[in-house]
């Protein structure tokens, strides 16, 4: 019934236009104020950032509820910015179900992360700079989801890349952080080339950047099929870069070099979700091209499995979460490729909360132990009860245990995969098992057993702002635990928003479907078989982790020895980093570049040196030197240029 309503009732959400712009501008204003006036005043900078994002958050909720009232219908305000012949570039905002959900996710997580950062980053010399970058990042994300045309979207897309570069490399004096920032920037840029190509393609073919118009153009059947497929693949390439899809996922684990709240914000909830958002935004285009949708689904499946298997063998707490994020993003892409638009965004929504919770939890652990190495932890359950319990809630949710948020969203993805392609379903099913296993492996290693002392504080390290005593771990201050407790609520309950036949029916699905021009009904959204089998496999994963890492009936070492080749592949991350760095970067790029430089030295620089020699002779007042030196070369160059051009014209187009 609500579907029918969404199709017939076209009343747009009752939101004033200024408010949408204000959502975008309030963190931007905070950014400007911090950069101009408060960079050196940490006390003010932090609260200013919280105020800016807080205001955006409140307004986002207002917009969200208005959109819910309108069943997710589309509200668009467009202003002409630039015209050049048939092309018009607009400056506009668009609010619909998808945008509203993203607004709420981005601003809520961002707000909580900023509050948390007030504690986590206290005393860091770059405190003001940190909050400025955070505000810029939030603005870019909000612009990305509010943009009503591909052109604006692309600008904000690049801004997201830039601000995340600044945040990952925040501790830029740390070589590993600087390298990670560069890697993230370059790898995502490779994907962005695809997005740029897609942009050029609609520019030449459709002469519009408007999202609604592009959706219509793709679905109308007027462009040739391969054009739509190319466009969709370009979009997906951009999405794959930002959302860390195989084979462009390699930047995300390294990006954990940034401050942990940054990881929670960008690498769990927002930036990596931008790719999923982008594919969802252009979902009708993928519906028009099944080839592209198949590519999305299988790349997603490969990503999910590859990342989950690597997560099995990580010893760094945060990297387990990083690979888990990559794997879950693969899950979302798999869902999109299987035409599970609602399922994918629903999972994005629940995942944002529980993954942010997990990241902030890992930061809390680090705050107390000064390390992310799980081999140096253990037994923290007693010392950090709030962190422990909230972390367990997040992990159960991620593993898909009834009735937590992750259960419901994961279930929908499995259902959509089952309907579309059994192969996809098998992949998703295996990943569900692996996910439960590696999460509880991390929990047993970190919070159970005996404490192994953490990482001693290096007092000679001036950059370290660690204040506690790792030998005696303690619970984190309330500014850090409060966001954990708050995030635990949606990690438990966010899934209840979309239970068909549940207390509030499936209004979440209706909300999202309101953003689409056409809705394809999938039928019932719950099946006992899928739900029971996925729960069983998750429990099996947890049980196996319990056997190996808690009871230690089997040691992990013996398993490693049995499956040695496989473990080696996992531990080396499928050798992809090696392939990229040793082969592409060192061999192909650097050698090629060196060769180019050699040629340049030989012909160009030597030429310039000869020129300098000419000048020297000129100084001695010999005009002849000029005549015999470069001047003649230049003159010959001009004459030769004329001859070449004339010959070329006649050769290309004989009379």
């Amino acid at each position: 019934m609500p579907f029918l309503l969404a199709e017939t009732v076209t009343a747009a959400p009752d939101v004033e236009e200024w408010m949408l712009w204000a959502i975008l501008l309030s963190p931007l204003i905070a950014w400007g104020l911090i950069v101009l006036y408060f960079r050196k005043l940490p006390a003010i900078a932090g609260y200013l950032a919280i105020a800016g994002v807080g205001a955006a958050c409140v307004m986002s909720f207002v917009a969200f509820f208005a959109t819910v009232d309108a069943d997710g219908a589309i509200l668009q305000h467009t202003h002409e910015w630039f015209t050049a012949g048939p092309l018009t570039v607009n400056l506009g905002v668009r609010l619909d179900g998808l945008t509203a959900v993203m607004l709420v996710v981005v601003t809520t997580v961002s707000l909580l992360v900023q509050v948390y950062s007030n504690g986590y980053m206290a005393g860091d010399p770059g405190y003001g700079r940190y909050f400025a970058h955070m505000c810029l990042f939030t603005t870019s994300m909000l612009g990305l989801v509010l943009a009503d045309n591909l052109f604006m979207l692309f600008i904000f897309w690049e801004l997201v890349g830039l601000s995340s570069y600044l945040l990952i490399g925040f501790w830029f004096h740390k070589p590993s952080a600087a390298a990670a920032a560069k890697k993230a920037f370059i790898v995502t840029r490779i994907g962005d080339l695809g997005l740029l190509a897609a942009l050029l393609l609609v520019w030449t073919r459709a002469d519009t950047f408007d999202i609604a118009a592009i959706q219509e153009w793709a679905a109308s059947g007027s462009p040739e099929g391969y054009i739509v497929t190319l466009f969709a693949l370009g979009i997906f390439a951009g999405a794959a870069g930002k959302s860390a899809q195989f084979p462009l996922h390699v930047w995300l684990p390294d990006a954990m070099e940034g401050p942990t709240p940054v990881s929670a914000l960008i690498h769990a909830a927002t930036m990596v979700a931008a790719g999923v958002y982008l594919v969802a935004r252009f979902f009708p285009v993928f519906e028009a091209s099944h080839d592209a949708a198949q590519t999305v689904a299988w790349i997603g499946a490969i990503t999910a499995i590859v990342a989950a298997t690597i997560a099995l063998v990580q010893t760094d707490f945060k990297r387990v979460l990083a690979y888990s994020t990559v794997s879950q993003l693969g899950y979302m892409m798999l869902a999109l490729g299987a035409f599970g638009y609602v399922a994918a965004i629903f999972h994005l929504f629940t995942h944002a909360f529980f993954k942010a919770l997990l990241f902030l939890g890992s930061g809390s652990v680090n705050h107390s132990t000064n390390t992310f190495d799980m081999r140096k932890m253990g037994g923290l359950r007693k010392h950090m009860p709030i962190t422990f319990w909230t972390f367990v809630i997040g992990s159960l949710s991620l593993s898909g245990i009834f009735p937590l948020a992750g259960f419901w969203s994961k279930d929908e993805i499995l259902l959509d995969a089952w309907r579309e392609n059994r192969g996809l379903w098998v992949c998703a099913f295996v990943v569900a098992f692996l996910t439960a296993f590696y999460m509880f492996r991390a929990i047993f290693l970190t919070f159970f057993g005996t404490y192994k002392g953490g990482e001693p504080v290096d007092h000679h390290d001036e950059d370290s702002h660690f204040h506690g005593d790792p030998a005696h771990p303690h619970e984190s201050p309330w500014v850090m635990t409060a966001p954990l407790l708050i995030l635990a609520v949606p990690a438990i309950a966010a899934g209840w928003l979309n239970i068909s036949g549940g207390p509030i029916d499936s209004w979440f699905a209706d909300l999202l479907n309101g953003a689409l021009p056409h809705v394809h009904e999938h039928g019932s959204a719950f099946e006992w078989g899928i739900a029971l089998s996925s729960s069983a496999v998750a429990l099996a994963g947890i049980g196996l982790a319990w056997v190996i890492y808690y009871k230690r009936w089997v040691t992990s070492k013996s398993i490693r020895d049995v499956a040695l080749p496989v473990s080696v592949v996992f531990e080396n991350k499928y050798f992809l980093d090696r392939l990229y760095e040793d082969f592409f970067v060192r061999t192909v790029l650097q050698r090629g570049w060196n060769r180019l430089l050699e040629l340049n030295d030989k012909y160009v620089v030597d030429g310039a040196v000869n020129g300098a020699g000419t000048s020297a002779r000129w100084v001695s007042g010999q005009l002849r030197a000029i005549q015999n030196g470069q001047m003649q070369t230049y003159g010959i160059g001009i004459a030769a240029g004329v001859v070449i051009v004339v010959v070329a014209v006649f050769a290309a187009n004989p009379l």
Partner: protein
Amino acid sequence: MDGIDIVGPQVAVLGGAGLILLVDALFPQQRKLLPYIALVALAASALWTTSWVSRDEYGAAFDGTLMLDKYAVFFYYLFAGITATVVLASIDWVDREGRGQGEYYALVLTTCSGLMFLSASRDLITIFVSLELSSIPQYILAGWGKDQRSSEAGLKYLLLGAVASSLLLYGMALLYGFSGSTLLPEIATAIRDGGEANRSLLILASVLLIAGFGFKMAIVPFQMWVPDVYQGAPTPVAAFLSVGSKAAAFAVITRVFMEGLAPKFLSDDWSMIFAVIAAVSMTVGNVMAIVQTDIKRMLGYSSVAQAGTFLIGLAAISAGGADEFTLGASGVLLFLAAYAFTNLGAFIAIIAISQKLGSDQIKDYAGMWRRSPLLTLALGICLVSLTGIPPTVGFWGKMYIFNAGIHADLAWLVVIGVLNSVVSGYYYLSVARQMFLGDPESEEPVGASPALMLALTAATAGVLVFGVIPMPLIDAARDAVATLAIG
């Protein structure tokens, strides 16, 4: 419009030049006033142009050799603005140099009058004379500095300029020989009537014209003088060359090819020549710019690359009907204005910084952010604009030209242009990175004189204001091009 009114803007400028020489000779102790006389003369010139606009008086003059249309007016304003900025940027340098102050400003103003004539000329002889009127003072200005590098730059520019002029003259002679007229509209008529049989001659003439103007535009393969002269010439003069004479060359070549050589059988050929030269210029300019360590040399190569981007607009002119014609040509005008703001801003910041450092090496710019936040910010904005990143005017310039290319079915060229933009980002932004993140050798602040700051603020404000609100500039460029008569 008759009598002195026809050449009013130029008379104002040249009158200013004469007055400067007189004041310099009669009241040597009042030399401080000279640049301000120049500014007043330029303001008077712009006012005169404005009075035409307000009277809505346009038309041909002097038997059709000058065409005073909106196209010319656009460039009159542009050249007055460029010259005023160059005068402001020169004050410190000329003061320090000490000698021949009157002559310096008089030569700058004379150049300006030549540039204005160029943009209005519709006759081959007038074009040639105007070109020489603007060039000869520039040869002198390029060699103005006391050091040998500057003298070498001046001489190189002069000799190679003479080669280019002779090629241009040869091309003009061929056109005259074919059509029996030097007026563009009459040449166009002759080509329409009997040109197809003489295509080879016309192509040769076109190539020679491209070579002659290409020297000033700094396109490959006529660009070799650029880095040497930019590096050797006094920096304000290099700034003048990079925006003034380049803009005039594009103004005149657009008019000549549009009004004189537009028939399809011919335009297909020169459009392809422009397209190929555009691709080569962008690539060569950017690849060479990457390895430069001297910032003026780098800007020299970058100006070659930018000239290649302009050429996309020219290549797009011939491709189709009136729509594409206006799109390509107005793209050239828009980008010229955008480039003028941006490059002037960059050069002024460099003038201020190198006056203090005594060096043009990029590595010496490290940590400039801590020594001079304002200069660094302005230079940073200009570098962003040169790369073509929003919200700067350089972005819209590129965007507009690329759009013209796409609608002229030159998508391959646009792809090359976009890739080149990415490459150019590497060296532009690595200068910015040095300035913002590098460690300074000393913490000593770097300042700038009020005149420099004024010029810099004006240029940077133009970059940002038209970056956010581009439509007024676009409308002006479009109106200007709409008045060209398609030959």
